[in-house]
């Protein structure tokens, strides 16, 4: 756990991102259908398509196309959308704010809620409440996210209660935290999925810690139950759950894609889906790279924290 180790991990991260971008670039080359044809539609003539291909630089060798894109990215110009010619930065800027707001609020709820639920459940192991928690988590881990979204919308927005908006489109130019009602359901979905997974892991780690010889010793010494739980079991359990928390952060970002789609939330996920559909390579590349970088950093952060915990 030295600065050198961190630098090496960061450098590897850059390498990973580079390879991801190459992979995305190569895969998009295999996408059926000529981008120029997709932009112009079926009514355009062959010459018009050829003209546009030339304008977009699609008639150049692959290596050159990729080199030009990479050069642009390194100088801070990730290109323009092939579809409507707007700069990628302008399209994605507000969406990054939206997606990250969603992700951060969810993580801010997932971490304390998971620890609370996990510790409480473990502290009263095999009680009815604990069994109920275990049963609910098992059940929810078997639920595909689209089902959770669909049911929450039907329950709170459209069919049963009607207390929350069933769509979460944030008007362009507005910041997401100006629309708290719209954030509730997407955040609740992500938080629910996260707590069900992480809370269960925390519970298992606390139980492991409580079973350890060290804690058994403390019990024999007559330390109070509360003291044992908070001074000894909890820190160990949190340290053990940290890598999983990194995974949950990463999964939350991934989950953003499905959740954004279900709630029509204008973030990176929805942009990504439509970029795939329209073969808009610059937008697609930018979305994938942002998501991949966040994912990598979350995992790295978890490793750093875990290592820090160990050295302490």
């Amino acid at each position, binding site marked *: 756990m030295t600065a050198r180790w961190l630098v090496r991990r960061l450098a590897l991260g850059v390498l990973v991102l580079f390879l991801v971008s190459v992979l995305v670039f190569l895969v998009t080359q295999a996408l059926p259908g000529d981008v120029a044809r997709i932009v*112009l539609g*079926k009514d355009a003539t062959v010459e*018009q398509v050829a003209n546009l291909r030339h304008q977009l630089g699609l008639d150049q060798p692959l290596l050159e196309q990729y080199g030009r894109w990479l050069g642009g990215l390194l100088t801070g110009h990730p290109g323009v959308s092939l579809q409507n010619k707007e700069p990628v930065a302008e399209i994605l800027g507000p969406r990054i704010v939206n997606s990250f707001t969603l992700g951060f609020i969810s993580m801010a709820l997932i971490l304390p*809620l998971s620890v609370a639920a996990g510790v409480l459940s473990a502290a009263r192991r095999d009680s009815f409440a604990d069994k109920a928690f275990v049963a609910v988590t098992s059940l929810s881990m078997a639920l595909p996210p689209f089902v959770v979204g669909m049911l929450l919308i039907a329950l709170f927005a459209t069919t049963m209660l009607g207390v929350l908006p069933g769509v979460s489109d944030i*008007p362009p130019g507005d910041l997401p935290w100006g629309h708290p009602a719209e*954030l509730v359901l997407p955040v609740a979905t992500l938080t629910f999925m996260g707590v069900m997974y992480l809370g269960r892991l925390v519970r298992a780690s606390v139980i492991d810690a409580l079973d350890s010889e060290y804690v058994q010793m403390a019990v024999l010494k007559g330390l109070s139950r509360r003291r044992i739980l908070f001074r000894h079991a909890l820190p160990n359990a949190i340290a053990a759950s940290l890598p999983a928390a990194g995974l949950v952060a990463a999964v939350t970002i991934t989950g953003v894609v499905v959740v954004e789609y279900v709630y*029509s939330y204008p973030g990176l996920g929805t942009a990504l889906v439509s970029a795939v559909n329209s073969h808009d390579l610059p937008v697609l590349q930018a979305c994938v790279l942002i998501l991949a970088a966040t994912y990598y950093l979350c995992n790295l952060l978890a490793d750093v924290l875990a290592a820090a915990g160990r050295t302490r």
Partner: protein
Amino acid sequence: MSRGPRCLPVLLLAAALLAGCGRPDDADDPAGAGTLRISVSTDAGEVLNPYASNQGPIQELRSSLVFEGLTALGPEGRTEWRLATGMTPNADRTQWTITLRPGVKFSDGTEFTAADVVSSIKYLRDPAHAAQGLALIQMIDPASIQAVDKLTVRVGLTEPFSPFKDIWTSVLLPMTKTGSAPAKPIGTGPFAVKSFAAGRESTVERSDGYWGRKPKLAAVQLIEYQSQQAQANALLSGRVDIASNTTPTIAKSLAGRGGIQLLDSKGTFSLQIGLDTAVAPFRDVRVRQALRLLVDRQQIVSNVFSGYARIANDYETTTPQCAAPNLPQRAPDIAAAKRLLAEAGQSDLSFAITTDGLLPGMSELAQVFAQNAALAGVKVTVNVVPTPELLAKWGQWPAFVDYNPVPYLPSVLGGLLPDRVGNAAHWNDAAFTGLAGELFRSPEQRQCPLMNRMHEIEYTNGPYIIPAFSDVLLPHRAAVQGLVPDVNGRPLSFLTDVTVG
């Protein structure tokens, strides 16, 4: 530490706290009065240019509010004068003189004149711009478009063309201020663009200098959603007043809930199955006829469109001023179909129908047809591909699902004449093409019988299975008043008398 785990209650509490922060805008916001909010399907590639090459429904909707053509279609489908007040041909209908409406202003306050018409037509006619409406005006000679005076334009054609004024009703052929397209197009319509975020939302507001009857609405907001389901949810939660295009099933499940009403535009919109007439086995007209005899049209109306449709007879829509051709309605006849297939040597026919499922009912139509065909031992599979792939191989699919939202004349010009891009079935029928030529040379009063003879050829030889004309359904909040159903399936182009309470 005596309490048990409270994970779910805690979660709900957090949700309630967040929700308690207040519900902004929505139904009860007084500032929203006079603003009509319409949900539409997301189109990330949309631009403001009405001459762009690949326009989706949202772009056409916005164009119809912001721009006007020389003529327009009324809600009953008849051609009405708009920016022009008259068009007169020379003797052989190869030259048309257009008289323009005086006193019309663009939304920026400048005057609309003949020069703007000339520049607009020239822009449209230039193949380099790849305008989507180009196919409709290919008969115009680009060298002979000229302004005679401030309110008169003369347009020369390369061949006679008599239904000239009907062409200009297309939303793809609007007039814009000289030099404003494609970057910042300015129109003469009742609304002008106030804000625009591609793929997300746009707002148009009432244009105060509008020449005609001004709309009662102060503004119209178009909000984009990625799925039909999301549009329905937006309507149910009061986020929008109208869901612009919806599936029959959603319409059925929405109607009556929370006071939601349904505007049902019965008209000429059709989903059709195209058969490539240039390749075997569909080259053989007997195969096409046999397949048409297999379709259970009643079942398609009831099971694909939940009853929001009426059966069609394999020819394109008729025009409102003409009586329908007197042709017997095709009904399922398995025995006759089998006989035709045996004659064509295709008794064990099997093929795939390709569709991108872009519009509600497309994949369902193919699935029901597959079941119908199975009754005669014809094996049909449904091939669902992404939209880009469908477009990329456009014209190469042997059997495909297509849709036709336009009246008869543009259907002929765009898709039924040989060598048109829209003619993905490669249909080339000499008799039909001859009649179309005659139609273009004939005066208005002789057009109905000609069109009916053309319909007859479509009915016997045509490349399309046209099982039904489906309704365009518009669920809306009860507070929206004054909507008119439109026979051409674009009821949202008629917002003049619409109010939102």
